[in-house]
């Protein structure tokens, strides 16, 4: 029974919390109520049996505990008493516990945690803490921060939600595209941290990629929107190569050298069928296009070559819809594969001349690779050294060092 309740906790606590925040109008009060509800479940379920709808039971229990507590406090505080009166059940419990409402609550929680009036790093911390249920220490470890720093970020974000009056709601349809952009950005940041840890010893932090996949699947189930599914496809395809991206020593393995048996083909097939569907519908959002590029790489082993012409064409499209120097850099690498290293080098030099990505290690890693392929050893070594001085990730540093040593 204890195990069963723990499983329920892992599975349901986030849904219960999302609903309690709506009913109680306060993050901290809802969190306390959630814990009290599970404490009651631990005491009652072994004795009385598991209720038919455990989630609804937990929401009701949490809500009554919280109202109780507000009443107890209210002897000293008339403002809280007002809140308690507002909490008197006016809608019937069935009404506010219907499944549709519970799902809406999860959406409300995501959109509130990713409100653009919160700083992006606060959005990320709050989403991981409240929506994914990670502990503050886990969030801190992932971002190499002190737990106190993360805790403070979360406390400040919750205070801003309360004081500035950030509403607990899913945005209206006309605001949705802009607001959804912020949510997808946070999810992709969480995923990227899992896919390519920005600092430290490991290349991947699979648990973060899993949290990001959970979030985007949740959104995809609740909202019909092509970019959500584009992001899901992108993450499925990138994550499918997780086990092949590093060798036994934790060293980076380049895409062209990866063992395809280590790719997760089930995940690839899910990603490919999503992307086919999206492209047939004419979706061309930035995540969809990036997923389409990842799809070309995923198809390469089966058809025996990488279709670089198609990749360059997709990057051209991506640059037109979302011009960004990082996209331009990736396009330069694809160009070098289609037209040779000289073409790639010209494209990267043009970027640098515009003052873009000068301090970005991958810019110099790309330049170094082009020079190496052109046989310009001295320039290649100089560029590898520049890249080395800018990277903060240990496996990347070892990879660049290996390349540099090969040129000696």
């Amino acid at each position, binding site marked *: 029974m204890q195990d069963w309740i723990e499983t329920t906790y892992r599975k349901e606590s986030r849904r219960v919390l999302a609903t309690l925040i709506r009913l109680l109008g306060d993050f901290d009060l809802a969190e306390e109520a959630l814990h009290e509800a599970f404490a009651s479940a631990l005491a009652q379920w072994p004795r009385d049996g598991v209720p038919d709808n455990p989630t609804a039971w937990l929401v009701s229990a949490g809500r009554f505990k919280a109202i109780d507590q507000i009443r107890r406090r209210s002897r000293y505080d008339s403002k809280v008493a007002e809140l308690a009166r507002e909490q008197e059940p006016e809608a019937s419990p069935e009404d506010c516990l219907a499944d549709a409402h519970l799902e809406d609550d999860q959406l409300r929680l995501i959109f509130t945690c990713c*409100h653009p*009036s919160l700083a992006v790093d606060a959005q990320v911390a709050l989403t991981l803490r409240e929506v994914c249920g990670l502990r503050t220490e886990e969030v801190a470890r992932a971002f190499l921060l002190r737990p106190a720093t993360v805790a403070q970020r979360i406390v400040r974000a919750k205070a801003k939600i309360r004081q*500035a009056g950030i*509403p607990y709601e899913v945005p209206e349809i006309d*605001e949705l595209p802009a607001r959804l952009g912020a949510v997808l950005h946070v999810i992709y940041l969480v995923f990227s941290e899992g896919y390519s840890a920005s600092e430290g010893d490991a290349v991947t932090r699979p648990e973060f990629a899993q949290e990001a996949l959970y979030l985007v699947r949740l959104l995809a189930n609740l909202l019909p929107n092509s970019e959500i599914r584009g992001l899901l496809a992108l993450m499925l395809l990138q994550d499918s190569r997780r086990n092949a991206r590093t060798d036994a020593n934790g060293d980076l393995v380049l895409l062209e050298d990866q063992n395809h048996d280590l790719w997760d083909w089930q995940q690839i097939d899910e990603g490919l069928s999503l992307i086919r569907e999206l492209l047939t519908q004419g979706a061309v959002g930035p995540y969809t296009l990036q997923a389409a590029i990842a799809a070309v790489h995923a198809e390469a082993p089966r058809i025996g070559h990488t279709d670089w012409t198609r990749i360059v064409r997709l990057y051209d499209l991506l640059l037109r819809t979302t011009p960004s120097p990082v996209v331009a850099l990736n396009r330069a690498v694809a160009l070098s594969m289609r037209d040779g290293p000289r073409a790639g080098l010209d494209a990267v030099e043009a970027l640098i001349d515009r003052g873009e990505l000068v301090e970005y290690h991958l810019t110099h890693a790309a330049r170094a690779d082009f020079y190496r392929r052109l046989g310009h050893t001295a320039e290649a070594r100089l560029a590898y050294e520049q890249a080395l001085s800018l990277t903060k990730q240990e496996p990347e540093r070892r990879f660049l060092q290996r390349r540099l040593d090969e040129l000696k």
Partner: protein
Amino acid sequence: MKYVALVYYDEDVMNNMSQDEWDSLNQECIGCVENLSAGGHFITGEPLHSVDSATTVRVRDGQVTTTDGPFAETREQLAGFYLLEARDLNEAISLAGKIPPARFGSIEVRPVRDLLPEGNAAGGQG
């Protein structure tokens, strides 16, 4: 909830307008106040003279000192304020977006706090 919308812009941009352009922006602002009032959102608000007319007052060790101009040199200067009634931050943001100078400068939206005898927010954490 009550929100203050502080209007900031680069005064040089306004100074470089022709009198007609400047008047027409001001007419837009009159219209904006009318719309906000009709919607029950306008509590009060005033435009300000240029920052050149500002005086900064400080009291240190019981001594009042006054200096010319604003506290700090910034690219944008405070140009006026609105006190708005809005359901929540999302509504306040959408109202602030309709303030005409938002096209030239920026609008800072801040919730108003109650001034209480004790237990005041926004400070006292030491």
